């Protein structure tokens, strides 16, 4: 079977999909083998402040997007002014999350890092997008963060924004804006 036929379901789309390769996890598997995971480059934005790019674990079983409260400081937000809180079972432990509405970005897989406004303008005119940005309520997890990463991309805050296809077989993740054909299925 050719590589293109194995992954065609990931890329057949009316609008361009962003394709990301799986990446090695920092922990070996239970048999000592390398573990590959769907990790995407994301960042959080609060006005003119933002985090660096962070590896976000694509977790379709997660009800909502959770991030470490370590990121609140970088964003200049106070978690005392939250929009609700709750306990969640995540990564094998119970975590307490405080919810805040925040802007998130998914960065382009080719990540051209266009710093000049003129270059960005030219690229945009050619159809290039540095990132996709959306706004959502997510959970900031306090104290003990039982994950090695800082971002878990769940249903609220990620899967409700995009059409996402994950293939452990092809070691790839495809992300696209939902188009009319996709919406018509539901």
């Amino acid at each position, binding site marked *: 079977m050719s*590589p*293109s036929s*194995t*992954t*065609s379901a*990931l*890329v057949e789309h009316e609008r*361009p*999909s962003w*394709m*990301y*390769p*799986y*990446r*090695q996890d*920092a*922990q*070996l*598997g*239970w048999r000592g083998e*390398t573990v*590959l*995971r769907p*990790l995407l*480059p994301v960042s959080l934005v609060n006005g003119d402040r*933002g*985090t*660096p*790019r*962070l*590896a976000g*674990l694509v*977790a379709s*079983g997660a009800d909502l997007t959770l991030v*470490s409260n*370590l*990121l609140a*400081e*970088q964003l200049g937000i106070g978690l005392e002014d939250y929009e609700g809180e709750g306990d969640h079972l995540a*990564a*094998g432990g119970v975590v307490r999350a405080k919810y805040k509405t925040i802007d998130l970005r998914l960065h382009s897989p080719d*990540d051209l*890092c266009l710093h000049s406004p003129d270059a960005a303008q030219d690229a945009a005119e050619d159809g290039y997008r540095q990132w996709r940005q959306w706004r959502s309520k997510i959970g900031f997890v306090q104290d003990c963060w039982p*994950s*090695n*990463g*800082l971002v*878990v991309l769940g249903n609220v805050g990620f899967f409700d924004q995009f059409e996402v296809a994950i293939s452990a077989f*092809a*070691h*790839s993740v495809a992300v696209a804006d939902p188009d009319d054909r996709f919406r018509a299925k539901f």
Partner: protein
Amino acid sequence: MEASLEPIRTDFTGYEGQYVALDWRTGEIVLADGDPHVVLREATGLDHVVVQGRVPYPDEPTRIY
């Protein structure tokens, strides 16, 4: 766009217990520190650099997420 993508691999050996940031194109570790705030601060504004998180010790429970 290529439909078949090779996974990006990283050698985390020697960074156990530290937070790391990678060159996202190659998987090479470019920043490491025991304090996550240091890695987050130093990674800010760097091109192609992504903070992956903490490298666990080998005897820590295996996460299945």
